[in-house]
């Protein structure tokens, strides 16, 4: 907690952390290295550097991307993530404000149902939900947004409610006395104040939706494969795992999220902390 005065302490800790950091990065680097090896030499010697015999250049990337139509998977993942996040942020901020400002048995019940939904494991609803989604024709990339908003409602509303509780009523009351309608009050006055919470909600949900496997697999997985679904399909869709293609696709799957992370790091870390504190 306190800065070690001794320089030697500093150096020792630095070296320790550096070694740990290397261990943390190693798995990703190993996969990256293997993505350039021929598929027969991956399982048997994954820690060996590619040499003249085993190096295959971009072949794995091309073959893998072709096999699972990675470009399409990327498109679906991107579309679904971006629009779910926007949808969740908007819908849950509005609901959160309403539930906090209006105290009736109805709002209290809804609030607790939402909180409850955060704990319920997905397996409880997966079968029935995929059937209802199909009956309501929600099993396509647009319909799935409804499902994600539904599943994201719990966390989003919880976080927005938590923050709104700390905002004094005075501003809103003043606005409404001046004749502003509820929507005007919300969008003009309250929403701008929610920026930091909105970012937190956006980031937490983006991370969840982008990496989600079961929901898209069960509802749209046959025709529209998002990245996680496409990767898992590599496992059995062609009779055997093409390790070369798998490695290359793993790399491609990691790159977007890592870029996003490096660009938005500060916000992500803040989001994680805010999410935890509210909990």
């Amino acid at each position, binding site marked *: 907690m306190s800065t070690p005065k001794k320089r030697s302490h500093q150096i020792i800790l630095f070296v320790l952390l550096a070694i740990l950091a290397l261990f943390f990065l190693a798995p990703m680097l190993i996969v990256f290295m293997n993505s350039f090896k021929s598929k027969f030499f991956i399982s048997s010697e994954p820690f060996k550097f590619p040499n003249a015999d085993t190096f295959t250049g971009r072949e794995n990337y091309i073959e893998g991307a072709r096999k699972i139509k990675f470009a399409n998977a990327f498109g679906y993942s991107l579309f679904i993530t971006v629009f779910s996040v926007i949808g969740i942020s908007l819908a849950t901020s509005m609901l959160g404000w309403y539930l906090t400002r209006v105290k009736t048995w109805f709002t209290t019940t809804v609030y607790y149902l939402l909180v409850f939904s955060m704990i319920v494991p997905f397996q409880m609803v997966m079968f029935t939900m995929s059937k209802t989604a199909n009956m309501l024709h929600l099993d396509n990339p647009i319909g799935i947004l409804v499902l994600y908003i539904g599943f994201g409602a719990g966390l989003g509303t919880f976080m927005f409610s938590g923050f709104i509780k700390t905002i004094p009523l005075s501003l809103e009351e003043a606005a409404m006395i001046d004749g502003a309608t509820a929507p005007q009050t919300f969008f003009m006055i309250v929403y701008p104040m929610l920026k930091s919470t909105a970012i937190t909600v956006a980031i937490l949900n983006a991370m969840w939706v982008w990496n989600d496997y079961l929901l898209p697999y069960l509802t749209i997985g046959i025709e529209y494969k998002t990245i996680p679904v496409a990767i898992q399909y590599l496992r*059995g*869709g062609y009779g055997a795992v093409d390790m070369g293609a798998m490695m290359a696709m793993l790399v491609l799957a990691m790159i977007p999220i890592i870029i996003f992370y490096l660009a938005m790091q500060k916000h992500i870390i803040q989001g994680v902390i805010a999410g935890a504190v509210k909990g």
Partner: protein
Amino acid sequence: MKKTLLLCLLALMVVGVPLFAAGVQESAAPKEVYFLNFKPEIADVYESKIAPVFEQETGIKLKVVTAASGTYAQTLKSELAKSNPPVIFQTNGPVGLKDSLAYTADLRGTEFYKILSDKSMALGEGDQVLAIPYAVEGYGIIYNDAIMRAYFALPNKAVKINSADEINNFATLKAVVEDMQKNKAALGIQGVFASTSMAAGNAWRWETHLVNVPIYWELREKNIPFGEKTRNFDFTYSAQMKNIFDLYLNNSTTAKGLLGAKSVDDAMAEFALGQAAMVQNGNWGASQILGVKGNKVADKDIKFMPIYTGVKGEEKIGLCVGTENYLCINKQVSAEQQKLGDQFLTWLFSSPSGKAFVKNDLMFITPFNTFADNELPTDPLAKDVIRWMNKDGVTSLSWDFSIIPSKEWKNQMAAALGDYIAGRKSWNEVAAHGADVWKREFDLTN
């Protein structure tokens, strides 16, 4: 900041919308037949060769989806319950048919039924015909005759016979295999048998095909006719199954501990690359040998021998021949769609282009009267299956595994075999488990 955000969003929409819109379009095509394919080995053939030609000749779009290995039943169940279900799908026999009865249309009036040579091969309920077989297949031990000849040419070989055709019982097979394994360096192989693949979804060669042999012998001994479901299974021929299974395990290219990561594809590649001399599989595996880059086995050297296990009188048996590939048409789709389904199947198995695909790419031995003798597949495995089917003095073993009570039984067998390989179970425990679970599953499903 807001402006850039907005621009980014617009950019994303421009990119994202057309990508998924393209996908949405696919499902709204006017004349389309959705076929849920069971065989991953030939998925590519349907998608890249057959579908375009079919569309070109008939204007009907063929949508082929292939279920991942080991997941056909669950994928089918899931897809059938959706609003755009498969028009054509498979069942694997009487047990599988029972699960899909709510969806199987009566095929008596179809063109497809008309071309079936032996109508008794179709499955149904009462008078209705609900499932038509489309590929007669045979399996046994595939061997590389070139390596066998090299073995028999060894000066210090331990057996008296001189060619692989002379192997006609387990004792001889064991002697040959073990001697070959001893001499594997001289023969240039890594092991006699290719990997006994046990990766998830890849254990079907043992939990279904190999287990068929003891099931067959026990049912015949108990005078239970082929196709009749029974609770009465005691795994009385388990010792014989152990004989051959041990032979596969102990004379292999791969150490036992690594088998859990090996797939059927891996095993077939080992055979094709000359690393193994034998592999248990069926004639559907032809594409997996012939299609491997660097395939070292000449067509004329690819042969079959029956799976010998040490049963008295096994000199008279041939390969295991039968089918577990039946096609059904979904009765819950519109009459128009059912007709399109019929049209595709009839086209595939009777039109010149369709038959060419069946012969050269799908490599099916079909039970249809539309195929002349010169239109049968000419790949070495199909040819050898036909040779064994027509051999004098030899009876093919029927595919009695069609009456295994459930997929769960097969899963349990695979798990038990895995435990046996790892030394966690003795063979007696495997056999006892198999017998117990059979009865339990039979009770659960009847």
